[in-house]
């Protein structure tokens, strides 16, 4: 961006404001987020001043910025929103759902307009005409012509503004609402103008009128809000007063000319309004005594002494101003990579120094022990940079659920718990889609229509609860609803239809797992929301790809709960190393249940060569890693005789290995970035000796055993 201004002169310099655009776009985005949140939280029956003021300020701020930086379409729209919100915060209007709806839609439109500007202004901007019209109608106290089918409880006419009974016919509005100052006079009898007020009371949709104090004798002054044109108004008034007696002015312009005498008005801007002004006799105003000047001289000396004391305070306040800084995600990832490398190097040093004589190398060993500790702490700190609270994930749901519930005609409340629970940023992006699907499912298929709920003796409002908590080394996210729950019969019959093997003996848990089959859906009708049945299997796959698991719990008639368990971070995992012949494989410790030695007798072979092992009372399928991974065996004396039971995807399987090598934290490396997806392998890690070990996909292994 070329700097084009000249220093010092101040007059006629060119200012390149585009350098502030990015800050403004981010700021406006945050304001829109906040506004949306506050609108959703607004309790219409008892909205308090602080809430309304807050929402107003958001719109006001965006308006100011967009006007300053030249985004007039956004300024215009937010100006309209601001007017409505101003009336609301002054209690001149009662908040109704349509206002929240139109404000939310306007916020969306503003977002879109801003995004377009941010991208360079190409393409067509979304149209705001209908939004502006609806806002003005609402601001004038009317119900807009495209009001939704559900009729809201209509508010009593607000004081001062005599809005006609809004239930009446919606008028054909001529244009947007304008605020006017109408002066009527001179009149022989001021009461003649009362008839004008009656007009507004009797004619629905005409607008609102209120008395103002008139400074001139025999003249009445009114503040009027209307969408009618001046000509229309004059025609109307003609019944009672002649046109010559009526003076209609724009409220803003009227105010401008009135106070000219009081203040030292120094300039008017192009639009005819005022640009700035000073109050006569105010301290520091030009033309008054400048006591400041006199104060300058003695102020000089203390000024010199002041800086030193001011220094520490300045630093502290600079800190207060910014307790967070924005950092490019790439930088953080780079940092994490480097720390990961450090951990590996440190592990190598630790391993190589194991054989050293403790006495001769005491200092070296002590140093390495310190390094070990420091590296662990560093790693924890760095990993926590990427941790962000679940509230970020949850934030999109109130709005989404509201829109969805409205669309389906259902009443749903959203409760969120554990918003402060943190998880890795990488997970956040990947968990959002599956969670969204689960919530939509609950709303669409779970929660019943209000009438049905009442008939069942439930409350009209269904509740969907989103919760997050840490359990062990995982984060558990639950989506719970108090809807109709899953129907065991329906699922069983649907599964049979699709040729899936089922039996009445299956436990509930096993039956619920059936809905994860591809294409499965017991929905009676396919709504375009989530009925196509492509969802649940994709959800499960997505979560499995994150090394997580999904469980379902349901009680017919009462509701359903879906629990998603995820490792806290994608990058680091607690692993158990196992040896097979000369190779090392890593198992996620979270899926390891137990391990034990076996003899040949404990293992029985069944049809098609698959093997089973008896663990207490259970028979479990056996997977010999040597076979699956075709591990070459060079030493005939060694063989696999250790079973490691792992659990994933709702079932268990026993892995046959040679030996258990140990447990440790492993840095998970992606195999697919340079290679490709390998079956039964979820990633790779680098061992202390620098070689690569494959991390096994226990979910994949378990699924393999099922077939």
């Amino acid at each position, binding site marked *: 961006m070329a700097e084009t*201004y000249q*220093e*010092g002169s*101040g*007059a*006629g*310099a060119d*200012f390149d*404001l585009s*350098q*502030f*655009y990015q*800050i*403004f776009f981010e*700021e406006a985005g945050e304001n829109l987020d906040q506004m949306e949140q506050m609108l959703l939280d607004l309790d219409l029956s008892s909205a308090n001043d602080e809430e309304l003021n*807050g929402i107003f*300020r958001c719109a*006001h*701020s965006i*308006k*100011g*910025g967009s*006007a*300053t*930086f030249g985004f007039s379409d956004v300024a215009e729209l937010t100006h309209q929103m601001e007017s409505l919100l101003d009336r609301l915060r002054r209690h001149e209007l009662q908040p109704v759902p349509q206002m929240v709806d139109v404000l939310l839609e306007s916020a969306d439109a503003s977002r879109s307009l801003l995004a377009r500007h941010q991208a360079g202004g190409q393409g067509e901007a979304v149209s705001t005409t209908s939004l502006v019209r609806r806002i003005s109608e609402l601001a004038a106290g009317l119900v807009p012509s495209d009001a939704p089918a559900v009729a809201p409880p209509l508010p009593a006419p607000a004081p001062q503004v005599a809005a006609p009974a809004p239930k009446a016919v919606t008028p054909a509005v001529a244009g947007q609402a304008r605020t006017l100052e109408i002066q009527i006079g001179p009149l022989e009898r001021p009461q003649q103008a009362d008839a004008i007020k009656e007009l507004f009371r009797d004619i629905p949709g005409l607008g609102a009128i209120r008395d103002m104090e008139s400074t001139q004798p025999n003249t009445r002054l009114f503040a009027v809000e209307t969408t009618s044109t001046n000509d229309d108004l004059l025609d109307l008034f003609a019944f009672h007063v002649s046109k010559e007696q009526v003076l209609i002015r724009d409220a*803003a312009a009227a*105010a*401008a000319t*009135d*106070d000219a005498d009081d*203040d030292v008005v*120094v300039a008017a*801007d192009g639009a005819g*309004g*005022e*640009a*700035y*002004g*000073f*109050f006569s006799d*105010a*301290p*520091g*105003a*030009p033309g008054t005594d400048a*006591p*400041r000047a006199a*104060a300058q001289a003695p*102020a000089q000396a203390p*000024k010199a002494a*002041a800086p030193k004391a*001011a220094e520490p*305070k*300045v630093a502290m*306040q600079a800190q207060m*101003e910014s307790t967070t800084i924005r950092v490019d995600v790439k930088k953080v990832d780079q940092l994490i990579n480097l720390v990961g490398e450090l951990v590996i190097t440190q592990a190598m040093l630790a391993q190589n120094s194991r054989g050293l004589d403790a006495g001769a190398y005491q200092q070296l060993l002590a140093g390495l022990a310190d390094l070990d500790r420091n590296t662990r702490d560093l790693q924890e700190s760095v990993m926590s940079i990427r941790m962000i609270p679940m509230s970020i994930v949850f934030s999109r749901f109130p709005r989404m659920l509201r829109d969805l519930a409205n669309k389906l005609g259902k009443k749903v409340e959203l409760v969120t718990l554990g918003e402060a629970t943190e998880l890795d940023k990488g997970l956040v992006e990947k968990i959002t889609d599956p969670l969204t699907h689960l919530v939509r499912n609950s709303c669409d298929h779970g929660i019943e229509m209000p009438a049905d709920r009442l008939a069942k003796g439930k409350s009209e409002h269904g509740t969907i609860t989103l919760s997050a908590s840490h359990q062990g080394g995982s984060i558990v996210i639950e989506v719970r609803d108090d809807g109709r729950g899953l129907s065991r019969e329906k699922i069983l019959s649907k599964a049979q239809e699709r040729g899936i093997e089922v039996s009445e003996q299956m436990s509930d848990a096993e039956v619920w797992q059936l809905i994860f089959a591809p294409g499965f859906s017991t929905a009676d009708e396919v709504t375009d929301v989530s009925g196509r049945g492509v969802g649940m299997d994709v959800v499960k796959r997505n979560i499995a790809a994150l090394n997580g698991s999904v469980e379902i719990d349901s009680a017919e008639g009462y509701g359903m709960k879906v629990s998603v368990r995820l490792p806290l971070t994608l990058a680091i995992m607690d692993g158990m190393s196992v040896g097979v012949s000369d190779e090392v494989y890593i198992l996620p410790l979270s899926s390891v249940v137990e391990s034990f030695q076996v003899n040949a007798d404990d293992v029985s072979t069944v049809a098609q060569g698959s093997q089973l092992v008896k663990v207490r009372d259970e028979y479990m399928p056996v997977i010999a890693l040597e076979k699956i991974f075709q591990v070459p065996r060079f030493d005939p004396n060694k063989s696999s005789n250790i079973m490691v039971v792992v659990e994933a995807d709702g079932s268990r399987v026993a892995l046959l290995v040679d030996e258990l090598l140990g447990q440790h934290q492993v840095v998970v490396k992606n195999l697919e970035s340079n290679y490709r997806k390998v079956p039964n392998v979820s990633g790779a890690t680098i061992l202390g000796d620098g070689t690569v070990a494959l991390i096994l996909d226990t979910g994949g292994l378990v699924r393999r055993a099922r077939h």
Partner: protein
Amino acid sequence: MQSILAVDDSPSMRKMVSFTLTGAGYHVVEAVDGQDALEKAESHDIDLVLADQNMPRLDGIGLTRKLRENPKFKTIPILILTTESSDQMKQAGRTAGATGWLVKPFDPNRLIEVIQKVIR
């Protein structure tokens, strides 16, 4: 060099004002709202206060009132940035003791022009 305390809860506006005034030869101290401004006014040597009206915690008019209550700031010039120049706003400003007002949005040159009428 004269010091101006620029108060606005909008970061983009604050930066823009700061940039504009610094270019015109003033030293600028930023504050994010009225409360922050009170603290900064105490700890810095300020020659003029330029405050946005609509801010959380303590707005422009409120800030003016509080500043005037303090003998140290009885005569400091205070300009309010407002998006409207209604009677109501002017009345409130006058009563609170403001020196003047400037309507937003404004051209940066005008900002300098107005400031220069008050301090050099």
